[in-house]
């Protein structure tokens, strides 16, 4: 059942992605100010949105783990964080390429970029520390704690381009202030959906690995007991 879900989600995501790439590269015109490179927005922004979504799921399951001590929540949290951190990396790399083309530099230390990089480093710390804790309960509890602390950065990232008195080089929230042309909206929405489907499939794969790992560990303990 789970395997079927992974296949279906992955295939739908891949199809949506291919369809979207076709639209974006072959059907949409170049943007007036930026030329061809604006197409990065159809990956860059969906990656960040999906990352925030999966970090939020990880936050909720981390809290649920601390409350209910059910290891399933720990597995959900770590799977979501791994996939979301990869999405943040996609976001950072695509943003950097766009920056090189538009600003002439790969990186500008403004609030949006700094907070997003900080987010990447925080969750990287989570993924680095986690395997260093051998005892399962301890590992899950500590990971949940780190995940909750790290999440404090996400509102900062989201607010970084919306605060009134912050100087930032990063483009504003074009969806909210209506600066995006209506013809760009459908590919943008499909971009979000495609990455969501692919990321969900990856999360399910990781979740499967995590639960199998836990089963193997408990079998090994049982064997030792005998």
């Amino acid at each position: 059942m789970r395997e079927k879900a992974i296949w279906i989600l992955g295939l739908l995501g891949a199809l949506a992605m291919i369809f979207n790439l076709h639209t974006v590269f072959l059907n949409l015109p170049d943007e007036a100010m930026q030329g061809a490179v604006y197409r990065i927005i159809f990956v860059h922004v969906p990656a960040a949105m999906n990352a925030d979504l999966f970090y939020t799921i990880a936050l909720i399951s981390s809290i649920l783990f601390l409350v209910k001590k059910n290891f399933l929540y720990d597995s959900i949290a770590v799977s979501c964080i791994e996939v979301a951190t990869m999405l943040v990396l996609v976001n950072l790399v695509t943003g950097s390429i766009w920056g090189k083309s538009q600003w002439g530099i790969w990186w500008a230390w403004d609030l949006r970029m700094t907070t997003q990089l900080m987010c990447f480093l925080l969750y990287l710390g989570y993924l680095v520390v986690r395997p260093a804790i051998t005892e399962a309960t301890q590992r899950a509890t500590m990971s949940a704690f780190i995940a909750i602390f790290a999440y404090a950065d996400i509102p900062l990232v989201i607010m970084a381009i919306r605060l009134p008195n912050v100087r930032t080089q990063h483009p504003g929230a074009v969806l909210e202030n209506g600066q995006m042309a209506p013809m760009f909206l459908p590919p943008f929405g499909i971009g979000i959906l495609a990455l969501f489907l692919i990321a969900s499939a990856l999360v399910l794969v990781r979740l499967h690995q995590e639960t199998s790992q836990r089963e193997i560990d408990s079998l090994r303990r049982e064997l030792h007991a005998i």
Partner: protein
Amino acid sequence: MPRGLSTAFAIARKDLRTELRTKESINASASFALVILVLFSFAFNLERDEFYAISGGLLWLVYSFAGALIVNRSFSRELPNDCLDVLVASPAPGWAIFLGKAMAAFVLLTIVEAISLPIFGLFYNIHWMDSAGPLVIIILLATWGITVVGAAFSAVIVNVRLRELMLPVLLYPILIPLLIAAMGSTTALLSGEAMTGDNFSYIRQLIGFDAMYTALALYMIEFILVM
């Protein structure tokens, strides 16, 4: 005084007494701060006035490195003889144990900072005495932020392999907003700028960081200690 608070002070006193008798981490931290201060003088070959522009950055890099050494010992000090288990089993509430640890680390780091600040002024010809009052406020605010987050993560990784390496990996990314504010305001202050407008918002950022993470750590610590 509520009971938890007096427990916290008792734990802080105990930690400080142990530390001042053995001087384990404070010696290491102070001499490390000194070494880093010396190394920076080779890293940047600058005129005297130019040093003011990077003074805040230098000072807070030194302080945050020294801080990591101090908070590292906060909870791992309790590992020999299973002292941590005894502390957790005692009737003291978890937040009081944590608050005591954080206060002790705060005092120790402040001592290290008080030692290294005059040396910093001396090596780099920086007149910090003119703005000593506001500088002390910035230092105290940022030091509390470093020690409260540091002590929380010290508790998280107390049982981790290679914890001396893991702490900086977790600590520094989370300290970024605090360090930006501390570095910015210190540089502005030492360069003789007025503490208004943007410079004042740094202070607000420090207070906000301290309040948020103190509350988060105090609330969460019970889950970490009692497992």
